[in-house]
């Protein structure tokens, strides 16, 4: 138990540090990297709660795919840091207001009157997180799950139709034509009389 507590405290402190640095660091790329670090720390916390599926999916999806694309975009931005630094203090009042609001809500929710604390039960050895999650997802929550899937599909189609402009003049490689090219259509062998 003691070791678990040490791990929990260490990783929550690192998580808080990373979360603060996401907001405070001057460079956008460093911010994104701190966000990756924050994801890792929260993955460890989930692992500690024996939610290994969620924890690994957090790394796989958010760190492996979403943040890679995020960094990809952020790295190509050309941000003028001087301008950012000058205008930072302007947002301080609204920032403090928002923080106070969120902290207030959280305190209200976790007050003993509203919060029923459950003692966590240790999972048995043969308990599989994935199968029990799948069982719930495909029976009790089938409709919300399918709705979310349809929503994502609509988003994919939307994104594709937004970027796919059907301009016939655009420069694009016709793969079919490229594959069908053969030696006869590309090469012309010219016979020349050799020099004597």
């Amino acid at each position, binding site marked *: 138990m003691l070791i678990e507590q040490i791990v929990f405290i260490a990783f929550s402190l690192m998580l808080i540090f990373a979360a603060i640095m996401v907001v405070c660091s001057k460079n956008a790329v460093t911010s994104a990297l701190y966000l990756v670090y924050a994801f890792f720390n929260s993955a460890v916390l989930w692992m500690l709660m024996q939610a290994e599926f969620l924890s690994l999916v957090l*790394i*796989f999806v958010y760190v*492996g795919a979403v943040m*890679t694309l995020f960094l*990809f975009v952020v790295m190509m931005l050309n941000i003028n840091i001087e301008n950012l630094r000058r205008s930072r203090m302007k947002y301080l009042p609204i920032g403090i207001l928002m923080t106070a609001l969120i902290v207030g809500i959280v305190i209200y929710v976790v007050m003993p009157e509203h919060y029923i604390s459950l003692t966590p039960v240790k999972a048995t050895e043969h308990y599989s997180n994935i199968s029990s999650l799948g069982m719930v997802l495909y029976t009790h929550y089938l409709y919300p799950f399918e709705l979310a899937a349809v929503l994502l599909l609509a988003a994919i189609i939307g994104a594709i139709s937004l970027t796919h402009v059907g301009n016939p003049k655009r420069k694009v*490689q016709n*793969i079919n034509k490229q594959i069908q090219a053969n030696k006869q259509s590309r090469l012309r062998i010219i016979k020349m009389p050799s020099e004597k």
Partner: protein
Amino acid sequence: MFDAIIALVWIVIKIVIILVPLLIAVAYLTYAERKVIGYMQCRVGPNRVGIFGLGQPIADAVKLFLKETIDPTAANKFLFMLAPVLSLMPALAAWAVIPFNNSWVLANVNAGVLYLLAMTSIGVYGILIAGWASNSKYAFLGALRSAAQVVSYEIAMGFALVGVLMAAGSANLQTIIHSQQGGIWHWFFIPLFPLFLVYWISGVAETNRLPFDMAEGESEIVAGFHVEYSGMGFAVFFLAEYANMILISALVSIFFLGGWLSPFDGIPYLSNLFAWVPGIIWFIAKTFIFLLLFLWLRATFPRYRYDQIMRLGWKVLIPVTIVWIFVVGFAIEFHLSPWFN
């Protein structure tokens, strides 16, 4: 508390037992690569250091150790130093769940496949950070290419593994191997043949090996993401690439070729003849086949064009996996013998 410390020490000892042979294998894989490709191209390869040039990898390692480490003035020092470590760490950490024999595995976890997916997907950070922190245009181009490529091929890789998960009914690597029990015709590479090919191709793409080495692309962007690295930083990137090659080969042999299972199980005469061979020998032999295939690919194919890589990943490999997942679903539903009964 005292028990926990003893358990921890045991885990560290096991990690050392896994990692030391792995790193030796990495060193001699570089030698094998130069030798095998050399013979494929009618050359001799390294033959000066020691007998048959066997001292060459050690000489290379010593040379890289002793070289001066240069960090570019405009580079972000911390991230520049962190990047090689970040690319090596997942390649080594993934070995925690790899089973070498019936009970030889460091962590026999239920979410083994997910852990592997998570580990292989964070390997790209080393390359991405290296490219950005070097503050050099060639390094940055290499990093961008690699990021886009790895993200695309990860999807095909994940879908291929979904097929394996369905066939085995578990995400535990030992269970996946056990469900392929009983001779070579029970292995998953037969019912999942398209997924086997897709997994192998995207594995080659994930390790940034030829013909998918857009991240390095020597003839286009000098050396890509590690162009600014010298000495140890460069050596660690190399180490990570070869460790990843061994990892992918081991994974293909676990998922599709039955890991440490003997191919002769259930054949009347041969199964007794080869009963004495320990499982780890079969595992290493299968891994070795794929390592040689890596080298063979490198010696054979020219580099892909970038848009063709993307086309292959998105328009060929992903549709193939999606179709085959349905096929596997039907095969399981109708208990297709001898794999799904």
